[in-house]
């Protein structure tokens, strides 16, 4: 059995497979399917200071090899999470990454402060890139200066490892990535969903109440891979890959491109056991080839084409 642990900054993950925020609830919903503590970690649904009801329906619709969502960051709020969900996760030994979002730097800092005190949180993932909330973080994620500012402020508020989740729509991705690194981020995660739309031709109207939604799923995988490849070349901190990963073969593409770990998102809807299957498949690949995870990371950057 090969060693599957990966280090992301100061944090060691059991294996390189996490679950993506918003697609794995608070984790416990998947406990009937498999031992969620066997994953590298889980990213919580995005947490805000106060609970949020989210957008009116319809919030989701399916598209070719993907889906659009405009959930509007509905969540139970950080307080309910810490008191009702976290203790159960801690008990099970789950590696928990708290995904947080806010519409002001102050609120981001308050959130980070609150989580800093909480045993059982292993890292914070800053969502500065959600496309579905008007007053939400996307403004931060598109602007290098704001991205750096919010990262620095949260960095000062917590000793927890700090991951920043990149918007695929930043005008200047390189500048945003470097600003986050310079402001003290321990890792970058990418990508969040890409803004899209769908119209119902029969009823001749837009399908989502929010009009636009975030596109996720296998459809965006080639775009995510290209962005992750670019990020790996741009920063020195680890990159964690997200976008259309449904199988071990998909995850391997991102590791070979240089990502240190991956997150499984929409695939958990198609197959709730997908994150575990991906982790097992990577292990099998390593064993079959006699390679360690570290041997894989970035390997496609050096080899010749075809």
């Amino acid at each position, binding site marked *: 059995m090969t060693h599957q642990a990966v280090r992301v900054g100061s944090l060691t993950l059991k294996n390189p497979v996490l679950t993506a925020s*918003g*697609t*794995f*609830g608070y984790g*416990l*919903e*998947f*406990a*009937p*399917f498999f031992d969620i503590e066997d994953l590298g970690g889980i990213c919580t*649904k995005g947490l805000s200071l106060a609970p949020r*009801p*989210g957008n*009116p*329906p*319809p*919030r*989701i*619709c*399916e598209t*070719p*090899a*993907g*889906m659009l*969502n405009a*959930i509007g960051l*509905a969540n139970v709020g950080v307080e309910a999470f810490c008191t009702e969900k976290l203790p159960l996760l801690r008990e099970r030994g789950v590696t928990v990454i708290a995904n947080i979002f806010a519409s002001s730097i102050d609120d981001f800092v308050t959130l980070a402060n609150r989580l800093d005190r909480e045993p059982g949180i292993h890292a914070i993932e800053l969502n500065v890139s959600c496309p579905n909330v008007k007053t939400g973080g996307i403004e931060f994620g598109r602007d290098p200066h704001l991205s750096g500012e919010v990262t620095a402020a949260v960095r000062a508020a917590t000793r927890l490892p700090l991951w920043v989740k990149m918007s695929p729509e930043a005008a200047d991705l390189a500048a945003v990535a470097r600003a986050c690194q310079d402001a003290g981020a321990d890792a970058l995660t990418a990508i969040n969903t890409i803004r899209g739309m769908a119209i119902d031709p029969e009823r001749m109207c837009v399908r989502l109440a929010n009009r636009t939604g975030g596109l996720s*799923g*296998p459809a965006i995988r080639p775009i995510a891979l290209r962005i992750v490849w670019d990020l790996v070349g741009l920063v020195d901190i680890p990159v964690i890959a997200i976008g259309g990963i449904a199988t071990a073969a998909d995850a391997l593409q991102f590791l070979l491109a240089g990502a240190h770990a991956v997150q499984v998102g*929409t695939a*958990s*809807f*198609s*197959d*709730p*056991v997908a994150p575990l299957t991906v982790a097992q498949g990577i292990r099998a690949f390593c064993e079959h080839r006699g390679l360690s995870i570290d041997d894989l990371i970035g390997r496609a950057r050096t080899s010749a084409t075809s």
Partner: protein
Amino acid sequence: MTPSHPPSAPSNQYRHLRVPLLRRESVGNAYHVLSFEVPDGLPADPGQFVMVRATTWGNSPLLPRPMSLLTGGTTPEILLKVVGEGTLRMGRAEPGELFSLTGPLGRGWRGPHPARQPLLVAGGVGIAPLLFLARELASSGRRPLAIYGGRTSRDLPFSDDLEEVAEVHITTEDGSRGLRGRVTDVLDDLLTPESEVFTCGPDRMMAAVADATFARDVPCQVSLEAPMACGFGVCLGCPVPAVSGGYLYACQEGPCLDARRIAWYPPTSQRGAR
């Protein structure tokens, strides 16, 4: 389910199964019954559903499809109507094809109340959770009233089975079977102050049925359809606006819900806003 007691709160008893299709039978116009082989059984209450996807689908379509259970047990069944790509593929599946089923999901019908006369109102494929309910009632010695409507006589799958366990009134829009008209044309005559209504069918039908029950001050549960990606409270894609403000999540608090809790759009006469 013990029909005479309120069902317990939804539990985490759902599982993810990979099971072969046992049998597919096409019934009527575009309807198919699929039964699966689950040796250790899929226990379910009437009104609960499963998320269904065949392992052969690739990415087309991507997401599993919610389907009410017609029955649980070792050979759970669903009744489907072909409306799009997913149901088309299901309607073409051959025995032995591997499916993934996640379930049982959601909350089924509450009650039925022992002191009330159950009245089941089904439209087309909405028969599934109601036939399940009627059979459970029959097994505890009760015989519900039922109204079953469709466009034509070929849009009434399982009407014979329903007639075995309920006193059924049929309506068709073209008059090819039963009364010409809609379920609501019969409903008023059958409603009594002792009725308790359970309905599943097209949204507009359910809203009209709910309306009639509000007018007569009779309890009514509806089984709602909402777009669903996960089926167990994770994607938050299935909200239904609640009268109390905020949202009910159809996959967890429903699909079977007290009609009075739902902020129907357009508003029903209960809120007198038409």
